[in-house]
């Protein structure tokens, strides 16, 4: 388990990194936390000719609260975000999901942006970004652009980022006060990729649901936004029966794969169970906040 030979660059600035990517295109891979890339390389499943290690790039490690949004720099470690008070206050859904990303040792190295760029179909952070309608800021030879979560995830391990672009920042919209949230997932063991996971955001007004956001992971090639369930919930008064209907809507909307750990049918079923439970927890939080 030793990687094939590769050329290694450690740029000091985003511009240098982008130049290197522009030069090497899809022959190059960006190394941030390395928690997915390095194992893939050691197993020789990935054989990038060039590694652009951005760990020495200055100014990419930050968590900043802007109005209504939390900006997280590309080199911010998952563990730092997990322990950040800003994240806890403004985006508790992200904090709760982070706690289930791998293990502490992984989160100490792994970055928030790296997990999103890797786009594992069972990752937590991709679904959080999707649930919150977050964005990433990408820098490439043509300059900077902002990509919405809904436009970012293409398929397994694939984003709409150009090979010559890097993510410089991830933006998570903050939850307005009084909003309920819940992250729930089923994994075979603590720290494993989720067999299914769900992030829920819930807001109430006048006794009815004014906003419901549901995003799932592990049930398809990309994170899935359960729009039909969201529509079904909006404008209705919360009830166990409504949660059950939402669960059924989610089951109808997802098309998971089966593997050695769980059948497709199981994943579909527990996706619904998790939605039901997450809605329940989110509602409790709404009520606690009130």
């Amino acid at each position: 388990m030793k990687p094939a030979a590769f050329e290694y660059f450690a740029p000091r600035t985003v511009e240098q990194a982008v130049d290197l990517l522009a030069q090497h295109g899809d022959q190059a891979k960006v190394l941030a936390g390395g928690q997915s890339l390095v194992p893939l390389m050691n197993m020789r499943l990935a054989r990038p000719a060039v590694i652009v290690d951005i760990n020495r790039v200055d100014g990419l490690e930050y968590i900043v609260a802007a109005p209504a949004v939390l900006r997280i720099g590309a080199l911010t470690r998952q563990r730092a975000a997990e322990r950040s008070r800003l994240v806890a206050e403004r985006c508790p859904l992200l904090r709760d999901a982070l706690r289930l990303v791998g293990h502490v040792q992984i989160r100490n190295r792994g970055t928030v942006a790296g997990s999103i760029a890797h786009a594992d179909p069972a990752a937590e952070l991709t679904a959080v970004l999707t649930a919150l309608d977050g964005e990433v800021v990408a820098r490439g030879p043509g300059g900077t652009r902002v990509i919405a979560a809904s436009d970012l995830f293409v398929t397994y391990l694939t984003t709409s980022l150009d090979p010559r672009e890097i993510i410089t920042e991830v933006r998570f919209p903050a939850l307005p006060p009084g909003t309920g949230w819940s992250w729930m997932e089923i994994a075979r063991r603590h720290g494993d990729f989720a067999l299914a996971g769900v992030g829920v955001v819930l807001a109430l007004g006048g006794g009815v649901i004014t906003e419901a956001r549901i995003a799932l992971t592990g049930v398809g090639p990309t994170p899935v936004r359960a729009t039909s369930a969201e529509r079904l919930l909006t404008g209705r008064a919360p009830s166990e029966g409504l949660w059950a209907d939402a669960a059924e809507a989610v089951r109808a909307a997802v098309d998971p794969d089966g593997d050695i750990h769980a059948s497709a049918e199981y994943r579909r079923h527990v996706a619904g169970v998790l939605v039901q439970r997450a809605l329940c927890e989110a509602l409790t939080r709404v009520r606690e906040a009130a």
Partner: protein
Amino acid sequence: MKLDGTNTLAAPIETVWTTLNDPEALRRCTPGLQELKEVGPDTYQATLTIGIAAVKGTYSGTLRITDKQPPRHYRIALEGSGGAGFMKGEGSVDLEPQGNGTLLRWSGDVQVGGLIAGVGQRMLGGVGKMLIGQFFKCLEQRLGSGT
């Protein structure tokens, strides 16, 4: 790994049949195809670089088309190996007219072995299906979608 699917194509069955047997169409629509060389009747030598994102392997092998029943049916057999392991697949393509278009049903049994099977099982089925889907999607685009 058993996979199957259907596609509706906006072209008459004969056109679809011709396209399916056109090396140029195969060349354009097979994901990751690097090289396709006709080495005999309905037999091709192929080199493919397939996978997803950074996880790609190059496989070289043969592709054979058998059991031809124009314009409705053929079987396809694919065998390749490379650094990431090997793959072996067998499948069938069946066409039937549907209105002005053609309904295409495909099914296959793909066996993947070696490294990629041992460490990639979590995504292998889905990715396999996706790649085959890409092939037929490309045909759809060439012929115009029937839906």
